[in-house]
């Protein structure tokens, strides 16, 4: 097979599984090391630079990094990356001196943002730091978008939102709260150089089955109900509640209902437990609060009596797979099940809604009613209009919205400077040896064998008594250190120099995971199974080096490497070295440069 080109930043980036999986490419091992070193403010700033909302994401992120974490392939559970992010936020102290400031003299360009959710906030932060005059229009009274309206306070305290949204708005961004944009045409007519749409997916899907209209008073759309709870318009619910849907909104609904008088709260889902869209930990949190999750039941009717909801009728189904492996939910033929209840919360999905975008202003929509967006630049077919977050490609999550915000900001910056937005700036990359002495590395190379530490929770009676009492208490200092030590430092790369190798096999013998093999060359498919430990995970690369004296090749399977550095410690000639790879994605450049095209 071909020798690996380690000069290509993508190669080592992929080895840092967590960072690669993060839509915003947060340098995870970098900030985890800072947490272990007690440098919480620095860890926070690494996060703030990449994902803008560390305290919020440290509590609510969908954590694409954790299933990707190498530790999860080495032992039972990945590093609790998300909750370590929260640690950085909890213990950072006063970071006001660390935050960058917007340039005193702007560049004279103005950008409008529709909606003050995570996508807009991320894009506005980047552009404000680049000297842009940013104006955010928000229909609600306060900034935050779904972070503020849909995520219950027992998962995310309001103080955290206020703080982190504040850091962004304090960069000189204008917030026009309580201002709903009703017409994009009108907005385009105003003196803005670009418009960013980050209005989310604001419409909760309804369930039109018999009885919907008659029992309407006690049937609520999940995200609207959560929003009303969040703003304090609703503080009670019936004793018996049925929540329809299996996503994270359903989990937030049922747990909120438990805190507002719901004693018998049930979640009823069409699909099976494993196929539910909700994150596993959110399902566990619901179960922990005595909320049963009933699966394979499809609602067919809201029952009512003299205009008042009495319950929901369900048909029982089972999953069947056809020849192509496609799953269908087929009625079992059993008698329908009636679940009596006082209130129903419908959380069966969200939809985009763009009634305020005129269809004749040069912004094309596709057949599904979604705006046509270039996934690379997030530019619409109107050159001055960009979209991000749920508004761009339908409901996803906060971290994707932040990532879109960064990319859209880069595009807006390039368009404003008269450059092609499809030409993306390269990431900043450094690769530096960590060798300090013969057996000394500037990272903690010892591998912890601890299993994942659970985050302490507030006692259940106390948690259920107050909807504003945060359930997760977060790691304390010591737990955070121990959990941080579980990180394998995958960004400290094993870098091999064939020229120096004497083929003594010392690295092969010391490697605890049998990653390294010296063997005759061959095509990758043939080489993989004959390595010392067969490399059967095709998602993980083989690091191949040529130029050895015997004509063999060095093949290292990246899959389960612990990055312990023992290969480099054992190497008599320094052919192996441990080098820290730090990649930061390109963002809008911070001021001090002219607006003339580069």
């Amino acid at each position, binding site marked *: 097979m071909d020798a690996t080109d380690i000069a290509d930043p993508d190669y080592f980036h992929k080895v840092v599984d967590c960072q690669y999986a993060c839509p915003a490419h947060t340098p995870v091992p970098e900030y985890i090391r800072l947490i272990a070193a007690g440098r919480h403010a620095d860890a926070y700033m690494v996060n703030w630079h990449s994902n803008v909302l560390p305290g919020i994401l440290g509590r609510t992120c969908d954590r694409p990094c954790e299933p990707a974490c190498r530790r999860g*392939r*080495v*032992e039972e559970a990945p590093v609790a990356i998300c909750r370590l992010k929260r640690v950085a936020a909890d213990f950072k102290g006063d970071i006001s001196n660390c935050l960058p400031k917007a340039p005193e003299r702007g560049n004279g360009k103005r950008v409008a943002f529709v909606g003050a959710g995570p996508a807009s906030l991320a894009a506005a932060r980047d552009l404000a730091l680049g000297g842009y005059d940013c104006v955010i229009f928000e229909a609600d009274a306060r900034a935050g978008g779904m972070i503020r309206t849909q995520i219950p306070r027992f998962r995310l305290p309001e103080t955290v939102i206020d703080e982190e949204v504040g850091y962004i708005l304090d960069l000189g961004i204008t917030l026009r709260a309580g201002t709903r944009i009703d017409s994009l045409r009108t907005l385009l007519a105003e003196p803005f150089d670009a418009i960013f749409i980050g209005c989310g997916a604001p419409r909760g899907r309804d369930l039109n089955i018999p009885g919907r209209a008659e029992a309407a008073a006690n049937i609520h759309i999940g995200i609207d109900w959560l929003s009303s709870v969040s703003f304090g318009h609703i503080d009670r619910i019936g004793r018996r509640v049925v929540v329809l849907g299996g996503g994270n909104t359903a989990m937030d609904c049922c747990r909120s209902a438990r805190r507002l008088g719901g004693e018998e709260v049930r979640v009823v889902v069409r699909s099976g437990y494993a196929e539910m869209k909700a994150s596993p930990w959110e399902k566990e949190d619901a179960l922990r609060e005595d909320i049963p999750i009933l699966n394979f039941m499809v609602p067919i009717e809201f029952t009512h009596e003299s205009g008042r909801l009495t319950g929901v009728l369900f048909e029982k189904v089972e999953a069947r797979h056809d020849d192509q492996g496609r799953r269908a939910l087929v009625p079992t033929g059993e008698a329908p099940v009636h679940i009596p209840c006082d209130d129903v919360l419908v959380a069966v999905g969200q939809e985009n809604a763009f009634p305020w975008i005129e269809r004749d202003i040069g912004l094309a929509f596709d057949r599904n009613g979604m705006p046509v967006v270039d996934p690379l630049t997030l530019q619409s077919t109107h050159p001055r209009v960009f979209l991000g977050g749920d508004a761009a490609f339908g409901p996803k999550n906060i971290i994707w919205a932040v990532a879109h915000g960064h990319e859209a900001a880069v595009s807006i910056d390039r368009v404003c400077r008269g450059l092609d937005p499809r030409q993306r700036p390269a990431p900043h990359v450094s690769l530096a040896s960590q060798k300090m002495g013969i*057996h000394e590395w500037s990272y903690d*190379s*010892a*591998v912890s*064998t601890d299993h994942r530490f659970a985050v302490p929770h507030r006692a259940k009676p106390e948690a259920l008594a107050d909807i504003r009492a945060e359930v997760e208490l977060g790691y304390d200092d010591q737990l955070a250190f121990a959990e941080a030590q579980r990180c394998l430092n995958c960004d400290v790369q094993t870098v091999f120099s064939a020229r120096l190798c*004497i*083929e*003594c*096999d*010392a690295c*092969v*013998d*010391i490697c*605890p*995971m*049998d990653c390294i093999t010296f063997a005759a060359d061959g095509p990758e498919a043939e080489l993989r199974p004959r390595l010392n*430990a*067969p490399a*059967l995970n095709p998602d993980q690369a083989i690091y191949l080096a040529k130029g050895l*004296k*015997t004509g063999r090749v060095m093949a290292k399977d990246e899959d*389960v490497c*612990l990055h*312990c550095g*023992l290969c480099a*410690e*054992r*190497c*008599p*000639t320094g052919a192996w070295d441990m080098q820290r790879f730090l990649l930061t994605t390109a963002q809008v450049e911070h001021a001090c440069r002219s607006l003339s095209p580069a």
Partner: protein
Amino acid sequence: MTFLPKPKLHHPELPTNAVGLTRRDYEGAISTLCAGCGHDSISAAIIRACFELALPPHRIAKLSGIGCSSKTPTYFLGQAHGFNSVHGRMPSVLTGANLANRDLIYLGVSGDGDSASIGLGQFAHALRRGVNMVYVVENNGVYGLTKGQFSATSDRGAKSKKGAVNADTAIDLAGLALELGASFVARSFSGDREQLVSLLKAALLHPGAAIIDCISPCVAFNNHAGSTKSYDYVRHHNEAVNRIEIITGREPIAVDYAPGTTVAVTQHDGTVLRLRKLAADYDIEDRAAAIGFLEGRRREGEIATGLLYVDPDAEDLHAHLGTIETPLNALDETALCPGADALAAINAALR
């Protein structure tokens, strides 16, 4: 060398052998030898050979003398019995242990200083007596612990790291072992893992005195140009006479070679060593020919490796002496102390 212990974590697909152990279960403490030492490679080969033969580690006794080589038993088979003896005296201690308990598998580990200099007499007599053991000489041609003086196995004309030229004749431990009557004689190279592992496995299965003279480059003091025991020199002058496959009872013969290129040696305990011949007319069971062959290769400046000689009908010391089959520690008091009458009978027989 490293200061950190090797992490206990291992590859999720790490295989287990017939006794349910992984290769990692055959490891010992972390090595404190210099990074890149050939001895560490030999330790790794011993670990693999014992794992692949599914030997229960607690039924192995590893014995050594003094020197870099003799430190290595700490670095493999952490669950085995161990005895770090006096300089050059490992063969005597091993002989004694073997006489007391023939049920254990004996692995003697020594170096060129320990076996060819201070312990040459011990080396000779253990082999001459046919003690059932595997005797591994980790042969680097220098005294590494005292900064690289020539040892007794250094070739005449070899250069030290500082440039001095060796004027003395080298002792060829494999040749000496042939002379002394060892029933399994092999030479190998720490840089040829496949060969070394198969030779170790064959030696462990051999019911007699087996010796492997294993060239093991000293990275710190004997891996330079002018050395005849460096990685580069041995790789260039290595001439393997054969490759071995070990066939124990239940394994089918996996690979077929052209007729005439393989030879099977059935030992009297039933194990079969199948050799793929690399040197066409080499007769593995002909001791005189083996001695001649070694001399011929030496004259050409080549290093003959592989299984040089095996006696399929080897007998060991216990057979020669007619000792009791039961280990002494398993005999009860009446057997061990037969009483005054028995002593009187023996004394009477000698009058």
